């Protein structure tokens, strides 16, 4: 069974008195453990897609099944539970809590999920052992993004959703962060979906989903993904 299965999903906004389809009858699936890249130009609807998968936005039409459960039918409270238990987020601007230390930012997950990985272990996984007592603003952009990844994977999510995770980073750091994500996807078996407008990244993905004008224009499996380091930036 596919871990992600979208069927005829639409997200409609009102703009100037007319309906604008951010997503228009989108259907696609993602298999468990896949490293998926969602590609598309600005305004294509890829972030909306990710938000719907993450339970921070709701589809107006269609089914959004995660491990067989239709999250479009969940109420607010159930949606919070879904986000807390099953989804990990990595944001373009890291979204760390500046008044908490690195370790405390990751330890937040313990508040949500009892069996969350210890913060030290999660930080070790992203190569930040020994940085736990620092505050986010004492770290570089790349390091902050790795803290964000550590926070996301600390709760062993079913889905790791990354919205332009390298958007605010230079290419070298971006490459490092993506390598980290890919490695965790493979080693931890965590299904990862990355939204990006960098088409070159498709070469490293197990699955490529192309979005344009709110529609899926391509959903293909990459039989021979290359390593992140081999991707041309």
């Amino acid at each position, binding site marked *: 069974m596919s871990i992600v299965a979208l069927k005829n999903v639409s997200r409609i906004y009102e703009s100037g008195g007319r309906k604008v389809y951010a997503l228009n009858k989108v259907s696609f699936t993602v298999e468990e453990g896949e490293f998926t890249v969602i590609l598309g130009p600005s305004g294509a609807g890829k972030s909306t897609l990710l938000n719907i998968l993450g339970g921070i936005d709701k589809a107006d039409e269609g089914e959004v099944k995660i491990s067989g459960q239709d999250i479009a039918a969940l109420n607010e409270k159930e949606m*919070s539970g879904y986000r807390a*238990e099953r989804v990990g987020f990595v*944001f373009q601007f890291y979204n760390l*809590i*500046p008044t908490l230390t690195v370790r*405390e930012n990751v330890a*937040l997950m313990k508040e949500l999920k009892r069996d969350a990985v210890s913060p030290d272990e999660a930080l070790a996984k992203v190569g930040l052992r020994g940085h736990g007592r620092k505050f986010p603003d004492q770290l570089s952009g790349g390091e902050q993004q790795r803290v964000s990844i550590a926070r996301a994977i600390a709760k062993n999510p079913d889905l790791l959703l990354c919205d332009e995770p390298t958007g605010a980073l230079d290419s070298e750091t971006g490459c490092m962060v993506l390598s980290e994500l890919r490695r965790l996807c493979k080693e931890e078996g965590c299904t990862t979906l990355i939204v990006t407008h960098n088409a070159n990244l498709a070469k490293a993905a197990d699955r490529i989903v192309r979005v344009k004008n709110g529609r899926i224009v391509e959903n293909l499996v990459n039989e021979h993904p290359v390593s992140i380091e081999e991707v041309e930036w």
Partner: protein
Amino acid sequence: MLIRKMLRDIYKNKVQFTAIFLMMFIGCFLFSGITGEWKGLEKHFNDYIHNQNMADIWAFHNFTDTDMEKIRKDDRITEAEGRIVLPMAPSGNKEASLDCYVAESNNISRLHVKEGVPFDSSKKGIWLDALYAGENHHTVGEDMELQYKGLEITGEILGLVYSPEYIYGASEGGMMPDHKQSGFAWISPKLLPGEMPYGLNEIVVKTAGPEKKQLIQDILGDSKVETVEASGQPGISMVKDEIEQHRTIGTAFSAAFLLIAVMIVMTTMHRLLKNQKMQIGILKALGFTKKKLIIHYLSHNAFICLAGAFGGFVCGYRFLPVLIYKFMKQMYVLPLWEGFLPSVYYLLPLGCTFLCVIISGLICRKYLKPDAATVLYADLPYGKMKELPRAADYLGFAGRWNLRDIARNRLRSFMSLCGILGCTALLFCAFALYDTFVNLSDWTFTKQQEYECKITDLPEEKEQQDILAMTDGEYLMEGSASILTGAASAESDGEGNRKNKKEAKKDVALTVAESTRYVKLAEDLDTFTRADGGVAVSKKTADRLHIKKGDILTWKPAGGGSYIRSEVKAVIRTPLSQGIIMMREDYEGAGRVFEPTSIIGKEPANGFGPYEDECSISYQKDLTGGIDSMMEGMVMMITILVIGAVILGSVMLYNLGILSYMERYREFATMKVLGFADKKIRKIMIQQNVWLSVLGILTGMPAGYGLLQYLLSTIPDSMDIPVFIKTASWVLSAAGTLMLSFLISRIVSRKIPHIDMVEALKAE
């Protein structure tokens, strides 16, 4: 275009700007209101005593015509008038007592005519206290009958008048004037029977130089003459005290609110400029000069501050003096009650606005100084975070988060603390004032003074014995005494005679009781003591003169004689009559003659019979009524304090709550995205407010106690009001503040479910 942007910015930040407006409004409201009130009081009071040619010295004794002549001829005296003063009872109102003045002229302490004709001794008539007349429905032209020990005087009321000597007209033993039962009247000598059985017993003078209490005694060479100088006249000293107190209170409260307004301006400007970092960068990039942008951002606060300050100033001056005078009129009598503000004070709204503009300007400079690129792309300094002590690990992540947030936003947290502290202090003060005044009446008349009635103007010895028997009463002697203080006291010789020419002499009240059966000596509300073998000193006098238990007091009763040295056996609380209290046995033991001025005792079941007309009798219930009237004024003050507390607490907490919410909006959004339930995030938000509330309440209680003490210190020196606070008041003020804080936090935290996670996470 920028004006439209400004208006939209103000609308978008309406909570903060409303808070600025309100605090500025309240600050200026209080300032112009209270200043207008005390300035008006000062002006009209000074005008009144000046225009009426208020006396400099009052002398009391049985004077002869020769005495009068001696005084008139002395170079140090510019004017002198003699009077016969008799306490008379109006027929038809046996319980009332009027101080009746019979005099040939009234050039000193001239009467102010409200209705009728000015005093003229050649006309047959009565000039009656206008307030007494009002309460008892007397009018000009009607006849009035007055009685005094068999003497009956009937005459037409020719005028309704105010006297500058009756600015404060409380009767003996009372706190509040009762114009229905007491007052004064001036009687033309033409109304008197042919042979007047009484001589001059009061002389008033105007002096050439500074007033000197001993002057009349020196002129007459009689140390038994009792004198009061203008500064010791209750009406003058109390009004002057009131003016000073109102000036201090007005300045303190206004400054507090204006300070809060300035702090809100600071936080609002910081937040506005931080949030508009991108807009500032864009405007700069488009070519707007720094000067233009500074003017734009300054105008945000300038308009709001000016509107608040000007509105508050106008409303305060318009309404507050009227409201305060309404209650002051119960205490004091002046012909004109009108606020007054010198024109320079009209600059206050501009001054407040200018101050806020300067502060805003300094903040703006910091944000607008960098070039466009720096503003657009550089991160704002976030403020260095510090590691918390190990103990903070036990707080959990929410606790640590809140702790660091408080440390990071010190100004915001400090302001919240100030708001809660102020709210608690005002609430506590209001409840404690209520308790204290409710207790005052009960304590004074059931525990401290246990007599039911007091009879003054005592008749002959035989009749006095009769009254003593029917009331199961005791004699009481009340008068005044002088205490030598400091070096002067130390330099008096062993026999108690003064050696020091530079004397420091203080006049106080003297009470000599036969026992402590009816007049208890209370060390505090529950502890009663005795002063056998020495004297007791009232706490207010002891504090004023730095006297403590065990000290040796050098003093003498008014009316001459040498000084006495007595040990202070107790410092006691007594609501009225501040000074020396001692027992008859000790007084006579010191070689003094006990001369009773009244009898105190129980109210006879069958009334006083013939003594009703012959004596002045005051009943405890009348005095309780006086305190009750005082309570009415107090209830108004309590209401103002409670309203002030709620406004201050609500505005500050809501404004800062919103500020905190806006500042942490992105963090809350992130937490929501991570899966934190709204309830949990709301709890985190409320937790911080609860912490600050607890801290504010803990500091607010002592502050409230201090405020209470301060307010009580503003009551006239002749009164002492012991503080009494019920446990319920402590609990209620703490619980009230906590509830208010919790309620406001709940209201603010209701925004959490409406956080738009998608929008919040879009932009940096």
